[in-house]
């Protein structure tokens, strides 16, 4: 008989598997990391809302046994904002692709960070648009190939970590699918953090980004993640030239600042007490 792992208890595996993801895709590993983080923290499945936009990454809601909402392209954060404001007690997780989070949804991303609302954002960065078949993303490196950059990308890429910090996010971390244990730990910390938390996870899309950029084997992409990752502490002593094309991993910010729904609750208290006076 099939031996069920603990992770299975968090999956809608009976009816919903296999997933839509291609063999070798990194998204499934990240789903596992999210589940392990929730499991390790003993958070009840009923108390988790997992919200996504549109994209390969955003297909995750189908498979996990939480309160799941699969919304429109780029808009997961404002949907999640509505849920969090009504249910501040719930753990609200947003799962987003890089196009979803940074192109069409970029405005929502910076404003959620600015408010410091208690949403955990898992940004799955595969450097490309997966779902629509390999077009350029705001994270595609300069010179890399995509179907809408057939001569090599000329659009400079976003650094989501710096963007989130500039906008006011209070927990910001980056990891890779290759370092999945570290990734799980960062997600755990993000889930425990009060305030807006971003975990950017460098993921592999062998089928599109890989094939278009001479790394069609998922192992090549994982090796690329491994070889190019530099821990933050080490990166601090390196020059910008040395860091060119590298993936700096680590926790970039962990800061205690009042979370938005708490701030709102205080406002309500103040207004109501003034009414009584």
């Amino acid at each position, binding site marked *: 008989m099939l031996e069920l792992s603990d992770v299975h208890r968090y999956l809608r595996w009976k009816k919903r598997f296999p997933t839509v993801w291609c063999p070798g895709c990194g998204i499934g590993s990240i789903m596992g990391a999210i589940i392990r983080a929730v499991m390790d923290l003993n958070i009840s499945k009923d108390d988790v809302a997992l919200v996504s936009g549109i994209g390969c990454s955003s297909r995750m809601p189908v498979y996990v046994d939480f309160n799941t909402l699969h919304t429109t392209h780029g808009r997961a954060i404002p949907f999640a904002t*509505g849920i969090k404001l009504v249910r501040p007690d719930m753990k609200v997780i947003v799962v987003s692709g890089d196009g979803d989070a940074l192109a069409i949804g970029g405005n929502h991303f910076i404003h959620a960070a600015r408010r410091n609302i208690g949403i955990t954002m898992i940004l799955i960065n595969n450097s490309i648009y997966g779902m629509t078949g390999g077009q350029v993303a705001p994270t595609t490196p300069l010179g890399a190939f995509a179907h809408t950059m057939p001569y090599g990308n000329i659009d400079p890429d976003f650094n989501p970590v710096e963007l989130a910090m500039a906008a006011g996010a209070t927990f910001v971390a980056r990891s890779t699918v290759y370092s999945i244990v570290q990734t799980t730990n960062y997600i755990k910390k993000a889930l425990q953090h009060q305030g807006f938390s971003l975990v950017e996870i460098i993921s592999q899309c062998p089928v599109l980004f890989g094939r278009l950029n001479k790394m069609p084997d998922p192992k090549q992409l994982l090796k690329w993640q491994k070889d190019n990752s530099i821990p933050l502490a080490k990166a601090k002593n390196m020059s910008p030239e040395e860091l060119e094309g590298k993936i700096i991993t680590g926790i970039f910010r962990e800061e205690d600042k009042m979370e938005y729904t708490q701030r709102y609750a205080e406002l309500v208290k103040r207004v109501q007490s003034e009414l009584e006076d």
Partner: protein
Amino acid sequence: MALNRISSDGHPLMFVQGNEACVQGALHAGCRFFAGYPITPSTEIAEGMARELPKLGGTFIQMEDEIASIAAIIGASAAGARSMTATSGPGISLMLENIGFAYMIQMPIVVVNVQRGGPSTGLPTKLSQSDTMQARWGTHGDFTSIALAASTVQEVYDMTIRAFEVAEHFSTPVFLLLDELIGHMREKVVLNKHDNQAVVKHAFPEIPPEWYLPYTESLDLVSHPAPFGKGYRYNMTGLVHDRAGFPTSIPAEITERLETLRNKILKHKREIWQLREYYTEDAKYVIIAYGSAARAARGAVESLRLKKTKAGLIDLKSIWPFPDEPIKEILDRCNIKSVIVAENNMGQLIHPVREMLGGSVKIASVNRYDGHPLEPQEIINVVKEEIYA
């Protein structure tokens, strides 16, 4: 804010703008979540909500744009709060994709459109009814929408409450179509505030979580997805989905889903339809209008009646689904010679009227689209043309 008095039967009275009446109606209906983005001529609704909601422990948030606003109220509704937003044409244009999402996941929300002139930025401070068809066909795909209307400030209050009831009953977005004139005009309103209890309650599933399927319709075809975080874990998606809420590509399931979205409304449209008649019993000339156009039409009918012209008015309180059957019943009853459609646009409501009458009755129209309200005299002139035609 307002001059507060008490009516003879004990209800509070207010002398307020339509937009403020909308706030009061929403709060009375149990609205406890508002997300919005400022835009003339709807802004007073957001400002009123920002002031009143915290007093009731509710939530107001000004989002970064209208796309975020509509998303936030849908999220709030999914978490169990009665929720609303208010905007004007440009804002509705931005919201439409997510309004379609709310149709698909069957989430009750109220969307107030205080109409101004368009297209584009159009006439920010002037009235219009040119979003009438947008409320029917705005978002992409096949769907059936619900839109209500009001032509007095009292009705803004009443129809806002009604919008919440209908949204909840059908578990779907409901538009309330106002316009600049109705939103900014001040009139007396009698508030229905004997008790402070919210009148509209959220439906809650009766079966245990193990057996729960969010989209198994009851006999009335309406699904009421359970609020998040109450032990009913399930999936909602904008993809066409099966009864459990998971994406499907099975033709029979696709057909079932799309037909249910339509039929849950069309099979119960009588419960939505609402209109007000003036002097229709013996009318030969019946004006069909809503909102501020209906106010001008009422003036026109009163003047015409003084001169013994048999004019009447049907003032629509529900626009979509179009109340064709009750209008036809009225027209069949009276001695109809012509129907006159009066609108502050280039002719939108006239389309369902034509479809309804199919050439059986002569139809004339009065349209004004320069940002100013119709004058009763403009309508009188058209009725007179019909008399001498």
